[in-house]
């Protein structure tokens, strides 16, 4: 499956069916810091993703200003 990481604008290819929570852990993404999107739907941590899926992992952290 293809994983598009935003805002890094990077795409990685990962093989094999797994839960979203495990996918995020493998990508080094902490829970609650990114939305996982397939099509126009958000996926919860226990949802399965598999080969052929196109997934967007969109970070939600912003800031810097005082």
């Amino acid at each position, binding site marked *: 499956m293809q994983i598009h990481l*935003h805002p890094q604008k990077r795409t990685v290819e990962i093989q094999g069916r797994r839960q979203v929570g495990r996918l995020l852990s493998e990508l080094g993404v902490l829970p*609650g810091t990114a939305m996982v999107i397939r099509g126009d739907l958000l*996926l*919860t*941590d226990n*949802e399965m993703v598999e080969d052929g899926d196109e997934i967007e992992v969109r970070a939600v952290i*912003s*800031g810097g200003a005082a």
Partner: protein
Amino acid sequence: MKCTRCKAKAEVNLRAHNSAFCRPCFQFFFTRQVERAIAGEKMFGPGDRLLVAVSGGKDSLALWDVLVGLGYQTTGLYLGLGIGTYSDRSREKVEAFAAARSLPLTVVALAEEGNGLAVPDISALTRRMPCSACGTMKRHYFDKAAIDGGFDVLATGHNLDDEAARLMGNVLRWQQDHLARQRPVLPAHGGFVRKVKPLYLVSEYESAVYAFMRGIDYVVEECPNAEGATQLVYKDAMNRLEAASPGTKMAFVREFLKRAQPAFDAAERTEPAVCERCGLPAFGTVCSFCRLVGEVEAKRERRAAAQA
């Protein structure tokens, strides 16, 4: 995973709330959180005119969307900070959002204001971090626009993660004056318009989810100046604590406001004077914005003299 409210298939899981929601129920939950913050802190009422500071990011646009949905009288305020194409894209998103909903929007471009100083000019000429200069500029122009426009309230999109990170920074350095002013509502005083943070109890994740579900087209990329910013270090630390113990951020901020903030507030209470240069309220004879501008102008003069 099923929705906690209606038992339909859940689209979002909120560990801090021990809840999961489908799309309609999440939007209901999010809006209720904001309504409760507004009512609980007596932020404003239906008769108040609100100026909503919008950056083009998820938080401020989600806030504007919720406030409009709740029927409040809002006007957007966008500050063009002059940060290259990032500012151009941000402005486009804000203008498109306002136009699609026929909402009034005020745009202030810093490069076109009095001294023509955009954020990159200031950080290039001074030793200040861009985020520090940006914060000073924003506060000044937010206050000015709110006062000039005769608004009752200035609303910003600061969320729970912003507040938790700020609190961590203030506590680590025991900045008593900052702790005294860290509140979801700063009442109108000494010429300042009331400032409110209706999203202070919703997480960054929740506001991003709301924006996504509502189809709000926001700027996803980070400000190029934010890389390495201390606030992001604190956010990362808080996210690690939250991952280990969900609800930590909420408890940190809520309990501070309940147990500690009033003591700091009582000890540090000072009334603002009037800035002798710009006439806006100031804690001192000159406000922090005019001090910053003075620093930049002095630097420019020294450079010009050295080149002559």
